[in-house]
């Protein structure tokens, strides 16, 4: 079997397929379960400085082409989360803590309080006032926050970017200047849905983020653009639901791939994708390195 192991953004992974932030990431047990289902690493729910209950429901709208969510960053705060990370580590793969804050200081406070194998900075959530993309659209903020967290911790720091900007490369370059070990692209696209029976916006928060198959072409384009512009690795996320999608991400230049919405169909999709990539590489006689960024070289 072709080896899928390798270095992704400063972490040694047995395979490049990871659990995306905010998906089954609230409890250590559910993350351990995803790890045991075959993920190469798991990323936690985004954790902040104070407990938040999140938005009122409906928090998700299911569409044929994906999902719109407005969870509202519910989390028990870092003070109540170390236990979950420790449990998740029982899955035997690196546990990356996704964190959020409203300032460089708050990000650094959360990061320095948690013991994790890496950090992913959520500068991209599209539906929480004062957090996420509200600050992550500004390259100055991205650079400063990245630098503050890099100073506070000694493990790899990844920066998760929003696609809701004119040129995502500007944000990627800012993260790189701040010292990021990798960027993660993309978070969800701002979206909404309306109930025709009543005229009400469906989501409790009105606006949410679109994920799933509908956004894969956008995510792929972002990964392609970022990997052309940056020296640091790019981790691709958005709409991956089969091994071909993951291979496309890698061909666009992704060092690793994360998966979220596709888990709605069950945890088996993780094994299906990693096995699919292995079989594909074997059939073609290629290695992961052979195909990484191949589309950049050809097109």
């Amino acid at each position, binding site marked *: 079997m072709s080896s899928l192991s390798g270095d992704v953004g400063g972490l040694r992974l047995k395979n490049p397929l990871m659990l995306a932030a905010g998906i*089954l990431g*609230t*409890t250590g047990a559910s993350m351990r379960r995803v790890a045991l289902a075959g993920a190469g690493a798991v990323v936690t729910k985004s954790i902040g400085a104070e407990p938040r*209950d999140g938005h*009122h*429901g409906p928090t998700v709208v299911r569409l044929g082409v994906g999902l719109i969510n407005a969870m509202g960053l519910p989390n028990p705060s870092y003070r109540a989360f170390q236990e979950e990370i420790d449990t998740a580590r029982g899955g035997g793969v690196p546990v990356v803590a996704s964190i959020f804050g409203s300032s460089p200081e708050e990000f650094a406070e959360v990061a320095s309080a948690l013991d994790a194998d890496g950090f992913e900075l959520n500068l991209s959530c599209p539906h929480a006032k004062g957090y996420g993309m509200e600050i992550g659209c500004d390259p100055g903020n991205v650079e400063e926050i990245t630098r503050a967290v890099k100073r506070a911790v000694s493990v790899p720091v990844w920066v998760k970017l929003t696609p809701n900007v004119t040129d995502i490369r500007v944000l990627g370059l800012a993260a790189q200047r701040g010292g990021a070990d990798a960027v993660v692209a993309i978070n969800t696209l701002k979206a909404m849905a309306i109930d025709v*029976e*009543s005229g*009400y916006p469906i989501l409790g928060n009105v606006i949410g983020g679109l994920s799933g198959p509908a956004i894969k072409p956008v995510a792929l384009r972002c990964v392609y653009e970022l990997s052309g512009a940056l020296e640091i690795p790019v981790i691709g996320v958005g709409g991956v639901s089969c091994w071909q999608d993951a291979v496309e991400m890698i061909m666009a230049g992704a060092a690793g791939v994360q998966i979220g919405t596709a888990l709605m169909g069950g945890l088996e999709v993780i094994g299906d994708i990693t096995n699919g990539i292995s079989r594909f590489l074997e059939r073609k006689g290629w290695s992961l390195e052979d195909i990484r960024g191949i589309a950049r070289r050809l097109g």
Partner: protein
Amino acid sequence: MRFRPANLVIKDVIRETASVSTIRFDRSLDPTPGQYIMVWVRGVDEIPMSFSAPDSITVHAVGDATRALCALRPGESVGSRGPLGNGFRLIGENILLIGGGVGVAPLAFLGEDAKARGIDVTSLIGFRCREDIIFLDRFRRLGDVILTTDDGSAGIKGRASAGLSEIDPEDYNQIYLCGPEMMMIDIIRRWREDASRIQASINRYFKCAVGICGSCCLDPEGIRVCVEGPVITGDRLLESEFGRYRRGPSGMRESCY
């Protein structure tokens, strides 16, 4: 099309007690007993509710959304997603239902389905006091009923478990529970040997109800109660957080009393 919220028009609101109402919709949703729907009270919230019949839910008003739901009138409507979840599995010729409070609602539906299939049904139902009793007639039509009230104002005095002394679990192929968490875990622990024959409908904090947000997961296996439940067998619950703690809307652990 099938992903849009279904509009359910309310046909009837039946006041069962001071704080519990049954809301009947204008059509059956064809659920399996034990399944639930996410009910969207527009402008308020979306919450999980078990079916108390193929076309109804029975709601205990405990907070904003449940109070708003109970205040709706015939002709008004709610949005909904579902039926969702696994539901109860009918096994054997002779079953026992044990319910407490509004938890008796899905069991009445289950019992009626079982009886229609020729299964013998015995029920043990418990309430705080005489005024809180619901669905006693529905259960009496199914078979033998043991009734308890905490204050002794009707039936045996004490919690639902006070009625257990009248029952030998060996007499039943399958035992179905729904009610307060401490009542359910108490029964499962007492009948530990029979735990794999117990099916309990449990309550956790649901947000997405599609199995991806992680809000409802049960330690230590990480069971996603919203899609793999809400009905879970007693042997799995014995090994779990159930009866020890639960998580609130933020994911913070809290007591399950």
